[in-house]
């Protein structure tokens, strides 16, 4: 059985924040079509690790490789990566559809009316498309932030920070459906969550920051 080449690789990653070391020696080989579940208690550095994998920050040691090449040398990385952080990136004064369209335009994704409507429908937000973000609840904002995943191209990398927070059962199902589709289309995902996310159902690789090591 041939082992697929890893799409995302974290090699001996180390991170410091505010003068203290968060984690070191983190390794991960994530092939296409697989998901990695980033676990760890509060303050262990899950969000920091995601930022490093997204290319927002440079690690204190180690490297991040996408399709074999380091991030800064990778011209097409931004076209294939989606990072949904804990902060929603939704401006209060925009309407839901406008906010989604802005995020799509900024990252160069398809921002056409049909695509945006489809994305909103996937997360059950079509009825709220003209509501200002200010009036949405936490769960609705999280769903809107996740809706942009429906606009992502195939076979990319999804980096999600606590995506299941504040989601009700239906929304969680919708997100799981999106994830399944993405993984089946040879995409990969690195998801940070302090809640168990039915990792077995996804065949997820576990990366436990508490141990500073990966458990395959």
């Amino acid at each position, binding site marked *: 059985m041939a082992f697929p080449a890893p799409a995302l690789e974290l090699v001996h990653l180390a991170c410091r924040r505010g003068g203290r070391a968060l984690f070191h020696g983190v390794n991960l080989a994530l092939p296409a079509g697989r998901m990695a579940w980033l676990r760890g208690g509060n303050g262990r550095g899950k969000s920091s690790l995601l930022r490093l994998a*997204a*290319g*927002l*920050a*440079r690690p204190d040691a180690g490297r991040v490789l996408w399709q074999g090449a380091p991030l800064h040398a990778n*011209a097409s990385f*931004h076209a294939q*990566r989606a*990072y949904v*952080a*804990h*902060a*929603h*990136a*939704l*401006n*209060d*004064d*925009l309407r839901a559809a*406008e906010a989604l369209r*802005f*995020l799509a*335009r*900024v*990252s*160069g994704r398809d921002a056409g009316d049909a695509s945006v409507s489809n994305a909103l429908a996937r997360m059950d937000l079509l009825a709220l498309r003209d509501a200002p973000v200010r009036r949405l609840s936490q769960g609705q904002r999280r769903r809107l932030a996740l809706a942009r995943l429906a606009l992502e191209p195939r076979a990319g990398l999804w980096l999600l920070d606590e995506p299941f927070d504040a989601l009700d059962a239906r929304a969680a199902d919708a997100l799981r459906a999106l994830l399944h589709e993405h993984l089946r289309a040879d995409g990969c995902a690195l998801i940070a969550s302090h809640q168990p996310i039915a990792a077995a159902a996804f065949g997820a690789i576990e990366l436990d920051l508490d141990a500073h090591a990966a458990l395959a």
Partner: protein
Amino acid sequence: MRSLFLALFLRDLKLAARRRSDALLPLAFFALACALFPLGVGPLPQTLHDIAPGVIWACALLAALVPLPSLYALDHADGSLDQMLLAGDRAALGIAAAKAAAHWTTHGLPLALLAPGAGLMLGMTGVEAGVLCASLLIGTPCLSLLGAAGAALTVGLRNAGVLVVVLVLPLCVPVLVFGAGAAVAVQEGQSPLAHLALLGAMLLFTATATPPLSAAALRASLA
């Protein structure tokens, strides 16, 4: 990068239109500040006429700096800035340019158009007020560019408000000198063209030098 520039520029204009009171506050500040000088100095027309160009320019400078702290603050707080910086290789440059352009369109341009009114109230003649308006039209983009650079350097810092003003004001001195000097030249019967040309040169210089600097500052703020 162009799509990012346009998307951000138009979005900021849209947001300013939706929060019109926020956008108009600096103009109110400008008018109030200009009104302080006659109250402090006395209503003698000749005195007011002589100090008018400098007063209006200084008040316009301060009014342009007032909305700077919030230039990046909201986007930084809600995570939009991170998403925008992920857009691609030269994302930071596009963001810096778009923010400066949006700042000028929502604050600098209205200031320049409001200034002749203030000038007339302080006893300037029509021609002088016209030249003042021209000098502000060329000078306020410089202020927006320099101010946006200061805002980029202080993204997310605690006392960013006053810090931005302290950082940016010394750099705006040449713009102030040439801008006010243009109107003063007309008052003294000379041509303002030299001053306006120098302002134009300052604008070219600022437009080429500051956006890359702002971009570097934005990228540095990510860490």
